[in-house]
């Protein structure tokens, strides 16, 4: 008997956010993903001067409650390359330190003319709160252990470019058919893993999650179809065309005890393991990486590595997301 009628509004909530928001990778249809990739490809080939007109005079705020190198810099450079004015507010140098709430911080940025807020926050769900509170388009630049959708999109673009025979400017539900991606390490605390595991299977890929039980509980299977848990990294590698490595997030371990020596011996991606089990696999890492722990230096710097490509693609993918957020460029006439 279904009397649980009180849940009906929950799943529809995302549509309540301003058009162009990107809170979770789930919010995007495959068509929308494809469109973002198309715009990304176009932007990458666009002359600098033309690109700089797309968001000329527009104002974008970066609100960062957690430290970040890649994401912050690439969002900021992306915005600037499109001609937008950016302002960076971080928790260390603002009234957030004095106890100002996320809502009030967002309302303040809106009052100052921000048309879009890029948010990085340690609390899962913070972008939803900000989007609800301000009515502005919000781009989630990583929230707690929840989502990092722009990372999943740039990872996708990296795979499409680096794997043979794929089209990086458009995707459908079959684009990654036959591709197996193993994501290894601290899945529990990883928003990157969640976003990738919720995106790639929708494009036809198989995602293997790999790691020890404390870092990869069986509940991870709930992320969706096309996701499998494999504890044996070597066996998983043997099946994979892409190996995505994750850092152990010491800052989120919260009392979890981990034998690092044991971890390294079972899960580190090093040259020996790579050549034995997946000599042709693409090696990815969202960064920051700890060389010598989840990945060895030779693999990070080796020919299989796409780690710098990922960073590079971040710029164009995030440019496309900013255009989408502000309804500009190719997104002008698109109903989102």
């Amino acid at each position, binding site marked *: 008997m279904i009397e649980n009628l*009180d849940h009906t509004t929950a799943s529809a909530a995302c549509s309540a956010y301003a058009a162009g928001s990107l809170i979770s990778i789930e919010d995007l249809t495959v068509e929308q993903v494809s469109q973002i990739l198309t715009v990304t490809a176009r932007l990458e080939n666009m002359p600098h001067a033309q690109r700089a007109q797309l968001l000329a005079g527009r104002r974008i705020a970066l609100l960062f409650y957690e430290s970040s190198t890649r994401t912050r810099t690439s969002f900021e450079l992306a915005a600037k390359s499109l001609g937008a004015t950016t302002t960076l507010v971080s928790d260390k140098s603002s009234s957030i330190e004095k106890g100002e709430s*996320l809502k009030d911080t967002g309302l303040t940025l809106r009052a100052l003319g921000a048309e879009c807020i890029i948010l990085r926050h340690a609390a899962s769900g913070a972008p939803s709160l900000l989007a609800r509170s301000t009515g502005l388009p919000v781009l989630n630049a990583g929230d707690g252990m929840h989502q990092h959708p722009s990372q999943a999109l740039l990872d996708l673009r990296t795979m499409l470019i680096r794997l043979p025979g794929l089209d990086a400017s458009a995707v459908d539900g079959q684009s990654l058919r036959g591709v197996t991606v193993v994501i290894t390490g601290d899945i529990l605390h990883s928003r990157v893993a969640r976003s990738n595991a919720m995106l790639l299977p929708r494009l036809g890929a198989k995602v293997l999650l790999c790691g020890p039980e404390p870092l990869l509980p069986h509940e991870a299977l709930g992320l969706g179809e096309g996701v499998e848990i494999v504890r044996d990294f070597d066996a998983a590698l043997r099946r994979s065309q892409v190996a995505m490595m994750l850092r152990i997030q010491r800052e989120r371990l919260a009392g979890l005890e981990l034998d690092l020596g044991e971890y390294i011996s079972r899960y580190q991606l090093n040259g020996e393991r790579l050549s034995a089990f997946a000599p042709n696999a693409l090696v990815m890492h969202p960064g920051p990486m700890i060389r010598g722990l989840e990945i060895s230096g030779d693999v990070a710097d080796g020919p299989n590595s796409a780690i710098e490509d990922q960073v590079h693609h971040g710029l164009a993918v995030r440019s496309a997301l900013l255009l989408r957020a502000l309804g500009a460029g190719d997104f002008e006439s698109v109903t989102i």
Partner: protein
Amino acid sequence: MSEILILNGRVVDPASGVDAPRDLLVRDGKVAAVETPGALKHVVAAETIDAAGLVVAPGFVDVHVHLREPGQTYKETIATGTAAAAAGGFTTVVAMPNTVPVNDSVASLEWMLDEARGSVVKLYAMPAATLGSMGAKLTDFVALAKAGAVGFTDDGKPVLEDEVMRAALTAAGRLGLVVSQHAEDTRLTGGCSMNAGPVAFRLGLRGMTIEAEARIVERDIRLLREIEASEGVRARLHVQHVSTARAMDAIRAAKADGLQVTCEVAPHHFTLTEEAIGDYNTNAKMNPPLRAEVDRQAVIAALLDGTVDCIATDHAPHAVHEKEQEFERAPNGITGLETALGLALRVLHKGHGMPVARVMQLMSATPAGIVGLEGRGSLGVGAWGDVVVFDPADAWSFAVNESRSKSRNSPFDGAAMLGRVKATICEGRVVYRG
């Protein structure tokens, strides 16, 4: 003095075994007569209520509410919280001690129960089991009992240490009072803000396990046995807001063994699951958290098979700005006094065929018994004139903006309700008219 005559209603009074058309007379604050229809037609009353088509039941008793006074009157006051109680059909509420400061002394208990607080319904309180609810040193149970305590609890927190809980159960047991336990092993729930499982994983939130609830329930039941063996005291444990199948199983087994264990269930735990959190809805955040469907079904099964003794709301008002925070930072709790009847009838009566009389028992007679209230939770002649009159067939939607509570933190705004309160009478005074 004043009389209220309630005519033509269906009196449902489980304590007296009545579920039949009856006319009811309340005189001088007490039930004066319950008669077959027409028998009281010559009585001249100051007020007559026509209850045709309506249920007339004992006013509801809620053994678990947070009224926030003293100390957090921006969330609720005793006056506003009890006004919400009256609107929900409650004529008796038991205030939890986690006020600021904690209600852990005779002085604070007397202050809380003082008429000057403006309680609209009958107010009782459970003071803290330990000083400051710090879990270390017992409060003065004897003095507090003399001042009107109806039980002891550190609600919001468990009494975690075995020796402290053993002492609390023993001392309360000697007074014939319950220790009301918030069953959560907080050593297992640090940083957690919802139920553990796939939904928490997907949302990136740390989850409270079923074990964290069950372990404390199982430990407390073990203590009851030990206390009886070593002290010869039949101690009384009341388990608050049970939310998991495993804890319910432990309680069921303990009852079968004849131990003095009672438990309550909150309407949100039999109505909602963790899916209600949706997109980080902080109005679906409470402790214990909303659980998975399997646990919700276990709670309903325990309500149906008699394991559950009462429905208690855990009415926990919070200001809008407190709930408008990051999910992990937002405080636990929801309001519940005005939605309890509507949910109980919708989910338990209509959804699962529970007789109205059994719902009434869960909301009046049994909770009154748990906290030892004489003459409440019953419409027997001579009992207090605590009466609720409601339309059991009225299907309506709850609108949180119309709440009598000072706070608005309910996940049931716009939710379907079945059964609407038409009048609430407390000690012979009409305290609410719908």
